[in-house]
């Protein structure tokens, strides 16, 4: 039977090391054949924000193509693709009220809008849930 793991995230992109650490963890969990649920709360609703755009880096002398800076939305899309290849489920829910107050309604495909009730549903239907809070 496939294990399902749920993660609750809170940090906005580019603000905390936690984001990369948790995405590494989710990546590993997919490699191990786990179904993944993510409940994005508060700033984390910006992680899959569709309008994130790459940029050049003049400090390093790299143009936009050379910089090739992976954006959080690209990492998340890549995790979704990987989950498909591994034939495991990947469900990303953005907390709706958090989306509204932040104006983060444009999310990448595969992200759905939800509420705290979804987090509870995810948690009660998973083998384990990890909350990664913010400070």
């Amino acid at each position, binding site marked *: 039977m496939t294990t399902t793991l749920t993660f609750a995230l809170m940090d906005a992109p580019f603000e905390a090391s936690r984001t990369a650490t948790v995405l590494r963890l989710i990546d590993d969990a997919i490699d191990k054949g786990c179904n993944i649920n993510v409940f994005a709360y508060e700033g984390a609703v910006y992680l899959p924000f569709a309008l994130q755009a790459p940029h050049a880096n003049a400090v390093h002398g790299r143009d936009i193509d050379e910089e090739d800076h992976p954006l959080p939305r690209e990492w998340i899309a890549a995790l979704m693709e990987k989950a498909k290849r591994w034939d495991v489920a990947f469900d990303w829910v953005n907390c709706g009220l958090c989306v509204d107050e932040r104006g983060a309604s444009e999310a990448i495909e595969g992200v759905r809008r939800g509420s705290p009730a979804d987090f509870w549903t995810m948690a009660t239907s998973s083998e384990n849930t990890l*909350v990664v809070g913010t400070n």
Partner: protein
Amino acid sequence: MKALNIISLGYRATLEEQDDTIVWLTHAMRGAGADIDILLRGSAVNYVVKGQAVSPLAIGGREQKHAPDVYGQIETLSEKGARIYVLAEDLKQRGLKQAPRLDATRIVSDDDLPELLGGYDAVWHW
């Protein structure tokens, strides 16, 4: 499933959000049928202290209608049946051992944590 939300950081963005967002989340999940209690530690132990009040914030003339009321949020949560645990050591370190506090508060010490945490199916540290 019984869950325990541990809240360690008090007053994080509470003015902007008009709520403590984890206490709010706990309310929302309880509303959806969740059986969740909370453990307040760190600066969040101040939430149960009586007498705190926030005047609605006005910035540049734009006034806030509903200032945060974290004490009230906790009080309402307890009235809905949630257990409100507060860590004794953190109250003491902050000089709050004798401070008037919410009647529904259940004081626990670090020594009680293994049994407390062991009584929940899920423990989430926010």
